[in-house]
């Protein structure tokens, strides 16, 4: 009996948490399928009486009357996918090489390098942006997805190295000793032994980087002004024009922008937890 009451009490405690998580999201989604008239109605229409997919249709199959932002939104989604996945792949490749060396090969200044890498997290984005901008223009990368890929590496790569080192550190050294005795090179050990074992670590690292790159707004805002390079966060901000703000479009854009990261994280949810733990082990 008492046990039962406890269970009930516990569940009751979760209710505010459920509401806290889902109410704002629900309102985002409801707003995205409401007409402007319903959005502006008082008392508020919690359930739209005339739900409409117009905002989504405008974005996915733009007609002539749709705004410029809605029309080009899918292109920005593609840019974001390109940028985020390129950053992820490059960080994993370059990062796992470095992390392997730091974790396995006796490198001098190991702790110095690691602290230096952690130190890059303290640098605010604003202090990088102007020199990066000037370089980007000089080498003709301004306004291209490449400039974003490069600049995102400034935070993605150190992060990848940090996480991967802590994953590699947990792998028993005996495993690769066997491989080393067989005469395998470091490179082969890394690819044949270490990486397959630390797949969960790779996945969670990839996930974190993808999410951060997808989320990034500041660099994208300043470095891109053509449709060919703009990313989703910039596009969402642009639903607010000088005069008209397309609230419905903005909400629909928000939902679409949230789908890839949310879906990926849900699919790989257990790797998120392991990634967080691994990051935590290192302190």
């Amino acid at each position, binding site marked *: 009996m008492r046990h039962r009451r406890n269970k009930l009490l516990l569940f009751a405690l979760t209710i505010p948490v459920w509401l806290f998580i889902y109410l704002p999201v629900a309102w985002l989604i409801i707003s995205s399928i409401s007409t402007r008239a319903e959005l502006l109605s008082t008392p508020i229409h919690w359930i739209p009486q005339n739900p409409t997919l117009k905002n989504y249709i405008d974005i996915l199959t733009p007609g002539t009357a749709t705004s410029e932002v809605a029309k080009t939104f899918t292109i920005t989604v593609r840019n974001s996918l390109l940028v985020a996945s390129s950053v992820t792949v490059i960080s994993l490749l370059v990062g796992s090489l470095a992390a392997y060396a730091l974790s396995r090969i006796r490198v001098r200044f190991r702790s110095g390098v690691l602290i230096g890498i952690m130190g890059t997290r303290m640098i605010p984005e604003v202090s990088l942006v102007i020199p990066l901008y000037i370089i980007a223009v000089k080498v003709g990368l*301004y*306004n291209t997805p490449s400039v974003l890929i490069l600049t995102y590496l400034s935070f993605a790569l150190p992060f990848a190295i940090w996480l991967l080192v802590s994953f590699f550190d947990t792998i028993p050294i005996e495993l690769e000793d066997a491989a080393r005795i067989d005469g395998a090179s470091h490179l082969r050990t890394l690819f044949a032994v270490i990486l397959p074992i630390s797949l969960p670590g790779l996945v969670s690292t990839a996930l974190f980087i993808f999410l951060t790159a997808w989320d990034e707004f500041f660099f994208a*805002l300043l470095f891109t002004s053509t449709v060919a390079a703009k990313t989703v966060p910039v596009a969402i901000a642009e639903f607010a*024009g000088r*005069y008209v703000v397309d609230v419905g479009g903005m909400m629909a854009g928000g939902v679409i922008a949230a789908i890839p990261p949310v879906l990926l994280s849900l699919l790989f949810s257990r790797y998120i937890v392991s990634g967080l733990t691994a990051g935590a082990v290192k302190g």
Partner: protein
Amino acid sequence: MKVPFRWISILVILSFVLAACAPAATPAPVKTEAPAPAETQAPAPVKTEAPAPAKTEAPAPVETQPPAEKVTIRVLSMEQAGPTTEEMNSIVDEFNKEHPNVTVLIDYVSYDALHDKITTAMASTPPAYDVFLVDDIWYAEFADKGYLLDATSRITQEMRKGIFEAAWEIPTVGEKVYGMPWLLDQKYFFYNTKILADAGFSAPPKTWEELIEQSKVIKEKGLVEFPIVWSWGQYEAAICDWVTLLYGNGGTIVDEAGKPAFNNEIGVKTLEWMVQSIDDGITNPASISYVEEDVRNVFSQGKAAFASNWNYMFDLVNFQPDQSQVTGQVNMALMPAFAGGGVESATIDGSMGFSVAATSAHPDQAWAYVEYLTSQAVQEKYSEHMLPIWEVSFEGASGEKLANMSDVTKVTVPMFKEQFPFSHVRPKVPFYPEASKALQLALQEALTKLKTPQQALDDAAAKWLQLMK
């Protein structure tokens, strides 16, 4: 372990597929979309290749460059710059057709990003853009920094005479003209005829005092809770509404010597009036966080009897039933002024201009485009969403044609002519963005009662004086 591996392979493969697709995506729907800026800058189409990560990124397709004299002009504009982007694009197409040796490429950013985009574009030589859309309040700053091509000698007599004289104030700093005016806009006074009639008034207020009287009646009758809504949020929008009130009270921002005058008796009284209107429940208190679009939202739902906003609002609130609950009930009137202010009306000039970058490699071709864009013929052809800058377009037969274009222009065209003489530009000072922020702070401090209006304005004036040094 197998399942995640499959997933990661999919991810990796996907990313490469996407990378491969990317250049194809580039020139997608917008015809005038540009590849990379590198190609535009020099006749030699050598593409500087990116370092390491370049392998995921195929270089943008290099355009086949015909004869060497063909030049590319890059234009930075914004969404909602009067004409729609389709119209802007077709102007570009027409220009490109008429000028086989010039290719104009146009990009659109949001207004909020435009200033910073121009500043950053000028950080390199040649600049990332040859032509840009410049807001009225940026001209002094950009001219001072040497961003803008001095176009004084390029302005013909015909232009001088044909275009509204007041419009020339926009691109003019000191004695020099730095571009062509564009998107003549000002704040108008909007009122809801139904609410006014229900309250027993047959005419809109001519003075702000009268507006308070009418508002009190409207409030008493319970027609709306807050009769007027403003855009007093911490944006330039707050300055626009404040300038309207200040000049309507006979005040000015700066005196003849260029020193701040907004903290004199008139300035303080004006700000006190703003604070009082919130205290009395006449101004919607949320105005302190609002921009123009919030004003439209409130007004379009019949939750306000009066509003001050740009030209764009009229069509949307009076003729678009999917945007508004008050269609057919809205009218525009001359912006009221204060009874003792000694002026009939006053409003804010919110126009913009098109200018050429001083460091552009092809100033002549760039200017040719600006001239084309602002020419009488093009302006009249594309006047559906923006009134022409040419005064002659408002006269005689072409004026009639302009006014009779639609139900919207029947009201807005005469209204524009009536209101424009009372339109005030903000001071042309190179430090305007910073001065404006100081003023926004002062207004907000007074409106949120952190400081008295006198104290807040004195502090802003002190800041202004400091910036003048």
